[in-house]
């Protein structure tokens, strides 16, 4: 099953809508609460990043028997130094985003921490596509 979401950056307060909606879907599908929590946190972090850094984008969630794959694609500025972006505490968030409690520099590290696999494809001026995978078996 595939679920598609649009992330609209013009309303920053709405960030989290896609992860909240997908969380309800997972509950209905009977996925364990522990796995749902990990998926929701990682997806929420990705959604926030798309809103505060990349002017929104699209999220595609593919649910299979043994795995859930979440692909988050944006046409934002790209990530110049991926090693730095993966470093806990490093952030390029705006002062406005920081005032809201974002920009802790924990988004990418949290996505890695809470997913089973994480892949990042990024190109300056073109955009970033982030893939998160979660194992459902065992």
């Amino acid at each position: 099953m595939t679920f598609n979401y649009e992330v609209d950056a013009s309303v920053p307060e709405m960030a989290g809508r896609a992860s909240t909606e997908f969380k309800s879907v997972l509950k209905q599908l009977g996925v364990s609460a522990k796995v749902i929590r990990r998926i929701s946190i990682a997806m929420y972090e990705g959604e926030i990043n798309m809103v505060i850094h990349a002017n929104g984008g699209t999220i595609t969630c593919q649910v299979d028997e043994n795995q859930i794959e979440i692909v988050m694609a944006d046409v934002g500025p790209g990530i110049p130094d991926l090693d730095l972006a993966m470093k806990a505490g490093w952030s390029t968030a705006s002062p406005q985003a920081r005032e809201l409690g974002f920009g802790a520099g924990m988004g990418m590290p949290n996505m890695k921490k809470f997913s089973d696999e994480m892949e990042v494809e990024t190109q300056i001026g073109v955009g970033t596509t982030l893939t998160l995978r979660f194992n459902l078996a065992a």
Partner: protein
Amino acid sequence: MVVRDLLDLKELKLLQEADLDAAISGGYMGDLLSVVMGEAEEEQLWITIQSHVNVVAVAALKGIPAVIIAHGYEPDEETLAKAKEEGITLLSTELDPFSIAKKLILEKGL
């Protein structure tokens, strides 16, 4: 301890009531949402100075049953409505985060 046990603390004001029988097994203090998301545990009481709607989203994602907004900051209508929808109890205090945490530890044994 459950959420209801917090309500007789005179420094706390109940803003949005949800499941008052939800268990609380500790606390977490933080204002950077991603740090809270990475580090807080389920069933913890969260003390923060943030008062906007994303606080409710983080609490809901983490399984945090109640949030205390410190320094007298008041959440807007949207945040209260979201808390109602997600089943998160919101409280506020005029005290700073450290002082309310101290009271919870000394007077409530949290």
